[in-house]
Structures are given as C-alpha cells and as structure tokens.
C-alpha cells in the first residue's frame, strides 16, 4: 500500500516536471536578483517584485537570491562579485543586487559596479541625498535607493503631552519621568544603535565630519568620554528593552511612554493591530539616523539592460507607492512628492503626518562612517556600561 502511494507520488512529480518544462515556448531569460536584508526582503523579491515584473515582461523569470540580514548580507554579495572579478569572469551571475550603504564603499573601491543610474528613466524622481553620498563616499550614478527607513522616537500622547523636541529636552524629560523611556541598548537591534548615534551627533555637533566628510580621526574618539558618561547617567533612569520589537511591545503595553523605533516597523505593528493607534512619533533635533538600501548592477552583469528595466520598474512611482509604501511601510526611495496621486491621501497623510518630508530631509541623518560607527559602539561598551 505504502509503495503504491510512493509510486503515485513519484509519477505525479514526473508528469508535473514534464509539463513545467515542456511548454515549448521561446526560452526565457533569467534575471538573477540578489538581495541582502532580513527575510522581508526575500518575501518582497519573491512574492511581489519578481511576479510584478514578470507580468510586464513575460519572457523573463526573476530569480530572487537572499544572502542574509545586516551588513553581513551585503558582504556576501561583495564576496561573490569579488571572486568573479578575481577569476576574471567576463560575464558574471548576478544581474541586480540590493545592498546596504557600506557595500557601496566596498564595491566602488574594487570597481565592481556599473554606472547605470543616470541612464535610468526613473533617475529624475530621485532627490535623496543618500543617492549621492553613502557614508561619506560619492556614489552618484551607481545606485538608486529602493526605500528609505528612518528611526524616530515613538511616544504615547496620553502620557506625553509635550514630547521632547531635542536630545537636550529628552535628557530633562527622562530625569522627570524615570523608567518611562525605553530603548534596546546597542546589542538588541539597530533602533537602539541609531538612538546612540544620534546622541553622539547631538553631544558633539560633528555630524558632518562623522557621517559625511570624514576622515576618521582617532583623537575624536577620546573626546566622546563625557558624552558617554552622561549617557551612562541617562541610562540609570531608562528601561533597556528586549530588542526593536521589545520597545514597540513596551509602548503598546504601557510599560514605557517613549522609545526609539524604526518607522516601518512602527507602521507595520500599527496596521496589524499590535500597537496602540494613538501612538505618535517625533524626530528629535539634531536628528536620528536612517538608511536606504540600494539597487546596483555589477559590472559583469549578464543582462545589464534588463537589470535596468527591473530597477526602473521598482522605482516607478506606481510600484513605489503600492509595494514599498503601502505594502511594506517604508519611505519611498524616490521623492515622496511624485507619489501623491498614486497612494490614497489617507496613507500619504499617515506616513508623513509625524515625520514630514521636511523632517526627513533635515533630520533624517546618515549612520556614521564605518570607522566612527565601530568606534561609537565600542565607546558605549567602554564608558556607558
């Protein structure tokens, strides 16, 4: 009996296999899309962008390959491209890649990328400063941001009538409301890291040097000690939450009244009913970091033309509105004003109510250059713990 079932199963597989391959159409072009990031990036490629593009270009199959979250995921893409370069492969395997900021610096140093962006039809929609500079390196022409994610302070307006408008005001607020501000330290997720970066920008006033112009100057690090000592004092009156999600959960359960969050997670939680709908956000002065992720085309891409078409598709206002903003709750990679007609006014007002486009351009800061970035985290461990 069991054998018969097995045979039947095998036969079904075989028949399906024959049908799947034997349709006898013209051979399809395979577009390899390699993406870093969390599993939501895989879902986006596999379930949303790939099928959407295939509908417009029926002769193409988009294959999404996922390398993993964080800079480590981007590093895997870099290693792949570098290996192909070292092996002298004229035509590589990857058509399009989706990468973090730091990747741009690595890849441009090794001359791995195609300058495609300015030829793209959708380049005219791109106004973000992140498309010109990434962690202090000029990347103009090599990447188009697919989305932008930003951190902000979320708060419950029932308890917080006048949210602090700057880091300085926040310090005062925490003194008056001990135990009501929560963040996840630096080991529990990037919203806490972002909060600490903002702290350093606020304390030193050297955002330009640390995040835009550089260069890395070891002497700067020693000058941070008072700022971190102050953060240590600050930490005595705050709750360290269990991760990015921990901060949102704490807000929702009323354990804390305020804390730094990723804006996209904030809206996702809100849409899923996991966050008190009254919760609002504010970006304190001088600002908090956010980050885009970029589309790049490797120099040795097998189908560079098609790759550009794919990027044009995803960075078109319609797809940016429907998939990036409405479905995944990110800020668009292109200028938000081009989306106005494409998304319901209600959604538009929602995502730009607390963090306005002006806020984003003025207070949506970058993370610091890689060396400063590491130095900040290590200083935190040295002085603020």
């Amino acid at each position, binding site marked *: 009996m069991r054998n018969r079932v097995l045979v039947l199963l095998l036969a079904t597989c075989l028949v399906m296999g024959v049908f799947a391959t034997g349709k006898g159409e013209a051979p399809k072009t395979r577009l390899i899309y390699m993406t870093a990031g969390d599993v939501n990036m895989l879902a986006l490629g596999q379930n949303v962008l790939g099928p959407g593009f295939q509908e417009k270009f029926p002769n193409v199959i988009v294959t999404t390959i996922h390398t993993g979250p*964080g*800079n*480590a995921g981007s*590093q895997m893409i870099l290693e792949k491209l570098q290996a192909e370069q070292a092996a002298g492969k004229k035509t590589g395997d990857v058509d399009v890649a989706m990468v973090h900021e730091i990747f741009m610096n690595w890849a441009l140093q090794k001359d791995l990328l195609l300058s495609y962006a300015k030829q793209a039809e959708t380049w005219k929609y791109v106004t973000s400063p992140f498309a010109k500079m990434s962690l202090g390196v000029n990347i103009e022409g090599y990447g188009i941001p697919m989305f932008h994610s930003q951190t902000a302070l979320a708060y419950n307006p029932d308890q917080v009538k006048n949210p602090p408008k700057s880091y300085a005001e926040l310090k005062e607020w925490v003194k008056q409301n001990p135990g009501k501000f929560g*963040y*996840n*330290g*630096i*080991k*529990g*997720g990037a919203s*806490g*890291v972002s909060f600490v970066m903002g702290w350093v920008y606020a304390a030193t006033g050297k955002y330009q040097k640390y995040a835009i112009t550089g260069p890395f100057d070891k002497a700067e690090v020693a000058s941070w000690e008072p700022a971190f000592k102050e953060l240590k004092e600050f930490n005595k009156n705050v*709750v*360290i*939450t*269990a*991760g990015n999600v*921990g901060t949102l*959960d*704490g807000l929702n*359960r*009323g*354990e804390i009244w305020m804390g730094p969050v990723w804006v996209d997670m904030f809206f996702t939680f809100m849409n899923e009913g996991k966050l008190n709908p009254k919760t609002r956000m504010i970006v304190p002065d001088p600002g908090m970091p956010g980050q885009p992720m970029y589309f790049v085309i490797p120099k040795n891409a097998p189908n560079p033309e098609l790759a550009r078409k794919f990027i044009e598709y995803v960075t078109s206002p319609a797809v940016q509105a429907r998939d990036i903003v409405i479905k995944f709750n990110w800020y668009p990679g292109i200028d938000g004003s081009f989306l106005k007609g494409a998304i319901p006014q209600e959604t538009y007002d929602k995502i730009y109510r607390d963090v306005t486009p002006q806020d984003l351009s003025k207070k949506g800061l970058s993370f610091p250059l890689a060396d400063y970035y*590491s130095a900040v*985290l*290590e200083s935190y*461990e*040295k002085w603020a*713990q």
Partner: protein
Amino acid sequence: MLLMYAWPFIASVARSFVDQDGRFGFGNYAKTGQLYLKDLAFTFSVTLFNTVAAAAGAILLAVYFRLRQNAVSRLMASLLKLPIFIPFVVVAQMMNSFLAPHGLLNTALAQIGLIDLERPLQLFNFAGLSFGFSWKQIPFALLIIHGGFQMIDNSYIEAARSAGASLAKVVWRILIPMNKSSILVAVVLVYSSIVGTFTLPYMLIGGKVPTTITVDIAHRVGYFRDFGVANALGVCSYVLVLVTAAYYLRTKLREAR
C-alpha cells in the same frame, strides 16, 4: 570527526590570538578583559546558579515521582516532558510576554492585589532569566535523573524503611548516592547547555548590562566582524565548560579504578 569537530575547535582557539590586523598576540584577550569581564562573571553566575537550581528541582521532583506513583504524579511527569521538546527561541518569546512589566504574570498578580502595576516586578534580569532556564532545564534534568531512580530496586527503599529510616534519610542516603552517575550526567549537560544558550538571554536581556557572553559574541561578529574577540570570548566559554567536564572525567576515572 577530525575535520568536523576537532578542526573548528582548534581553529577557533588559534584565531582568538590573531587580532584584526592579522598580528599574533593577546590583544583580543586584553579587549575581552577590558570590555567583557562583567559579562563573563555574569554568565558564570547565571550558569552556576541555574545548574544547581535545575539539579535540585529535578531531584526533588524525581524523588516524588519515584516514591509516589499515582495518577497525579504520572500526569505531572508526562506534562513535564513538554518543555524538553520546545525550542529555546519559543521559550524566550513566551517568557518575553509572560515576564514583561505589564505581561501576563504581573497583570495577574496585580489583579489579585499582590502588586501595584505602576511598580511591577522587574523580571528582565537575573531572576527572569533564571526562571526561563529553570522552566526549560528542570524537565530536561528530570528526564535523566528520574530514569536513574527507576533503576533502583524497591527492596533497597523498603529495607531502609523497615530499619526505621526517615524519608529524608532514604533520599539522602539511598536514592541520591545510588543514582549519582545520572545526576552527574544531568548536571554536566545542563551546565554546558546554559553556557552556550544565546536566544533566551538575547531576547530577554539582550541590550542590558551585564549580559551573557553569547550575546557579546553575536555583537562582535554582527557589528564589527571581529572574529578575534568573538573567538576569545568563545575560548572563555570553553574554559567555563571545561570546569565541569574535568570534574566529570575525574569522577568517571575514580569510578573506573
């Protein structure tokens, strides 16, 4: 075996002496000492406390199940098998919402008037972590220790009883000594699994100070790609485990003699 187990182990020890510029030396250990001494001490105390707690809890329950075999004890014994099959990440998420300041536990206690929800029990710390570990590890130790108790023939217990031994004496002088080897196995396994657990501490006290070294290792790798210090921390955890391994081996050798 050499390739799959010995080589990674040796490589990890070797790389703990190579710093990020590729130089050989004790730099990684210096940094570990400078930044993570507190975390090492914390990890050690969490591990030690919870091993003792798990062993004590498991012995008590196992004794109960051994001496009282009825419907209640059988039901309890089978329920206590559940946690063994639940992965740590699920336990962590469960503890996360159970122990939170406004989580299930605190809300329930507030409902019956034991605590004030404005000042809830703070359990995302040593206490909560220990609760989570006990929840997961007592049943595991119980499985091993209870099995050992089952092997002890009733006649020993009856003989002691008829000679007038109290219950405590039966446990202390008969059951535990006769079951020493399985208790030892349970202790060693629980101890080394606690040292190496990442998810539970990460999800409960990830960003706090102090935290466990597994969280630090993930931090060094995730944010700095600094495998040197990560390996140095790893070596420290091997040393922590070595303590029990050595004890276990010594006892085994003594038994063999």
